[in-house]
């Protein structure tokens, strides 16, 4: 390089600077990835705690909720770390330009632009939403109560991060992430409706049915483009149908509680 750079074509500093930028970028990614690994593990804990709701009658849910809440508390801590690291850099930088190599192994070889953390964040939001729906996570001004939907603002309050930021660049929860997690919640509630019947709870499917229908109505007014949100939201109608079938089965047999 020495002899050619003397010719004046390439100022050696240009490529030195580029190398520095590339290396710094890789370092940040490493840092974030380490946090995400922790989040992933905690996510599995929360998920398995919440899964027990499927085999636990509504009346005995308290220990399940308590276990989920303590898992979520750990996740909140990791989100705090992630937020403090990520807020040093443009929020969308690592969302938009990064491919998550970890996931590529498990999925199609096509590069997936999942963003570095959006998937893990969606998992956390989902855990919060489900725990809240089951009757956990009481808020200061809103008592815990089964069947309630935590708004994006409430999720932000629980996770202690801003939501839908527009005026400044920092870590936050985006509307898309919240909606993605809502779809996961709907999927999970469809499963819960089936399992409630197995547990002899004929009331909860009705509650789930109304809740999911209301959400479905909400999703229908969104003008979604052909993106991942669109593709996933297409699955809502199948969940709605699944739950309707359960309600139909119950009412056919006169099992709907009066």
């Amino acid at each position, binding site marked *: 390089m020495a002899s050619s750079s003397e010719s004046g074509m390439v100022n050696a500093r240009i490529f030195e600077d580029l190398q520095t930028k590339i*290396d710094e970028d890789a370092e940040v990614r490493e840092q974030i990835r380490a946090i995400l690994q922790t989040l992933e593990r905690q996510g599995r804990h929360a998920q398995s705690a919440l899964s027990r709701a499927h085999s636990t009658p509504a009346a005995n849910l308290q220990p399940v909720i308590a276990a989920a809440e303590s898992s979520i508390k750990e996740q909140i801590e990791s989100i705090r770390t992630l937020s403090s690291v990520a807020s040093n850099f443009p929020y969308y930088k690592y969302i938009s330009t990064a491919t998550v190599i970890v996931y590529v192994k498990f999925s199609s070889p096509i590069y997936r632009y999942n963003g570095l953390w959006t998937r893990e964040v969606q998992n956390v939001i989902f855990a919060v939403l489900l725990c809240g729906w089951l009757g956990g996570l009481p808020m200061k001004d809103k008592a815990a109560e089964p069947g309630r939907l935590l708004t994006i603002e409430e999720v932000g309050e629980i996770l202690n991060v801003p939501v839908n930021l527009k005026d400044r660049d920092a870590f936050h929860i985006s509307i898309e992430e919240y909606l993605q997690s809502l779809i996961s919640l709907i999927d999970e509630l469809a499963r819960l409706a089936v399992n409630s019947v197995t547990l002899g709870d004929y009331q909860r499917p009705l509650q789930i049915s109304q809740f999911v229908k209301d959400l479905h109505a909400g999703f229908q*007014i969104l003008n979604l483009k052909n993106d991942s949100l669109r593709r996933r939201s297409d699955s809502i109608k199948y969940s709605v149908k699944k739950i309707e079938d359960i309600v139909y089965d119950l009412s056919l047999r006169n099992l709907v509680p009066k």
Partner: protein
Amino acid sequence: MSTKASPMSGVKRHHDGIQKEKGAGASPSPFMPMFETFRDELDEHHDRRERIIKASRDITAASKKIVRSLKSEIPAKILSEVQERSVAMQNQFESIAPDLAGLNAWRYQRQISGGIQEYMEAISFQHYLRHQSLITIEEAAKSLPATIILTADDYVLGIFDLVGELMRFAITTIATTGALPGTQSSSGEHNVLEDLRALRTSFEALDTTSCGGTGLGKDVGKKMEVMKTCVEKVETAVYGLTIRGSERPKGWIPDLGDQAVAVESY
């Protein structure tokens, strides 16, 4: 169908049988206000995104036209045409600058990235023809509106394309004038092949393995191969010039057709 539906006779229907929206009647979803906010936000986002994609395409087209008309001497007519297009391109950038302000600069980076890379190719070529040197990232960034970020990735990928442009420039000049474009200065001869080699060595030294399959790492492999082929094409052309050039009568035009086509189609 109609008999099956009869147990649900309470449902109101339009004349064409489609069930009427329940929302207007008895119990609208309690989540509607929330979703209405989401809808407005998402619409805004999609509109912005589409504006940026369109501008990126227009910038790409303008850049390509500039590159095509730019040649060594830059006659006045072409210069004014290039300037005209540059102004149009600047206007494009200005028009989307607000959409790319603050937080949104990175949000829509992928949408504008293509246009910026083409723009980089055009202005780096223009810069080279004027100064015979590689434009720096700072100089390039300065030519863009302040809110639009020039990422290192786009800069590098644009410069990779510059190599292809320099190759075309070198080959065409060799074919039409029988000499490799370059300048004589106090420090000695300085020609486009040396510059291409300087670029090549710099690129080869750049270590992008840390990017993994992300951003730059994704595109560099392919671009690197193309870049090397380009440099080699010029090397071969200069070889031909050296070995056969002396035998050639002045004013003789080489087998332009074939070579020119092969180069252009590349």
